[in-house]
């Protein structure tokens, strides 16, 4: 299971799509690790240097909705700002999120691009708390 600075994750695949299982110690780290793992499906961050920073604020009614909003906002940023995001700092206050995201500029011809994610889905979405921490299961449309 690969380690991120925020937690551990594995990738899984279905017939047409891909997803991630993530484990972390806190809910903030879980959000950060999920973002890192999602970009790991899209971008080879080897050699990328941070040259941009984004501030994100989101609010939702439920933590699962907030997680999907967070991942989909990052997909939006990646596509419209041509940003390969690879450092994340998340602060949560209930279902309010504030985040700082570091990214490298990347164009569609870059060899660092390895795949595309259209969106994070709600299919089988789970955030489970246990004595060992938190676990997340999320499927992407690729």
């Amino acid at each position, binding site marked *: 299971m690969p380690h991120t600075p925020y937690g551990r994750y594995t990738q899984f695949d279905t017939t*047409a799509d891909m997803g991630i299982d993530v484990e972390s110690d806190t809910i903030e780290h879980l959000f950060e690790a999920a973002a890192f793992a999602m970009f790991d499906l899209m971008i080879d961050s080897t050699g990328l240097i941070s040259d941009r920073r984004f501030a994100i604020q989101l609010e939702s009614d439920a933590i699962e909705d907030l997680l999907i909003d967070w991942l989909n906002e990052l997909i939006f940023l990646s596509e419209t700002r041509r940003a390969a995001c690879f450092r994340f700092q998340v602060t949560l206050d209930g279902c309010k999120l504030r985040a700082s995201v570091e990214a490298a500029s990347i164009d569609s011809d870059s060899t660092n691009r390895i795949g595309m994610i259209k969106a994070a889905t709600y299919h089988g979405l789970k955030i489970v708390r246990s004595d060992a921490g938190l676990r997340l299961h999320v499927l992407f*449309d690729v």
Partner: protein
Amino acid sequence: MIRLNRLDGFRWEIPRGSIPGMRVPGLVLADDAMMTTIRRDESLRQVAQAATLPGATRASIAMPDIHFGYGFPIGGVLASRIDSGVVSPGGVGFDINCGVRLLRTSTHIDDLSDHLSDLVNLLFRHIPTGVGSSGALRLDRKQLQRVVLNGSRWAVDAGFGTHEDLDRTEDTGCLQGCRIDSISDHAFERGIEQLGTLGSGNHFIEVQYVEEVFDPVLAAAFGLETNRITFMIHTGSRGFGHQICTDYLRVMGDCLRKYGISTPDRQLACAPFDSKEGQSYLSAMRGAANFAWANRQCITHRIREVWERLPGHPGCADDIRTVYDLAHNIIKIEDHDDDGHPAAFAVHRKGATRAFTAGSAYVPESYRPYGQPVIVPGDMARASYVLCGTKAAETEVFASSCHGAGRLLSRKAAMKAARGRSIAGELNARGIRIAAKGKDTLAEEMPEAYKPIEQVVGVMIRSGLANPVARLRPLGVIKG
């Protein structure tokens, strides 16, 4: 394990009651060999889950290219009565109006053979492909709004096509009833640089030829002649449509609570057809559908430009004519029979196409005596088919057909199967020229990653739901 009753050699029923809340049974089209594969994933459960949606009528249907999706399976058809039913963005998917356009020419395969590599390379160079591809057209926000409202007509008015192209596009390439205020700023931002681009994944442009004609009358009506060159375009609404689906899945999640609807999977979230949210989604979905049709129209124009400029080949842009363009991820409001009475339905097709027959008002006038061409792309190496729907398809499966070969292997499994092989080399050895952008695209999209197309269309034909018109063989493939 989902219970299945065999109805005949190609029809399987998932009885009501297989999971709680099913309003109608499931109907799965497959032969024995395919069913063995289908049972391996959760797609049959997804057929049953779709059957729980309010207004579901007759059956939750799965085409033979069915595979695991999210919420609905890929290859799913569900008709929900508009007077008592719902609309569900998960029944369309993220790539709204992903679809296929088939173009024909009068050029004989022998006259292209010396120019095929040049043609593939030029198409790859002139049509932006790949993840996040952009830059085919420079539009401002007002222009993009006109694209979204007018679809293919915007492109033709801008000089990117002919009126015949419109006549031979489903709904003439424009769904009326899109309101700009139903679409988010995020969607416009994602779409603004992507018109005229192919994208990545399973999207493609193929240079093909008509290998065999099965129905000379229908083939002649569709302009298909043995050994003539054709082009096939497979793409959709790009990031614009992805964002609209994302936005409305969020809205529909709230609707479940608001309208007291229960679904077994949040990805099936929906709203009553007549609700503000349901109508708002349909409005935005129509905008995405129009974007997709304009996208395929702009790519058609670019193919014509390349054809005309192909060195050493006396190609003429006018020689490339549209056979048909159809959607395979969409909701359409259609009239169908419901127990002997006509009724209006929101027909959800996710990885399935329309297949209306001769005489239907849904078939363009020029094809009405014959029926609508049903275009079924296969994989990169084998074949694609042109079919035509039957009366049985109208009465049994809401005039629907399969949309392709259907994925068999996951991307990882395909990568593993491709390890140590050169997929491009193998295709080249079969005479198929390839131009692809993504590092892993060819491996992920290798022919073995898909079900054999003959098996899929064979089920449609032998079950009496479609008739074969022609088989097309790939000569060149452009991938993102």
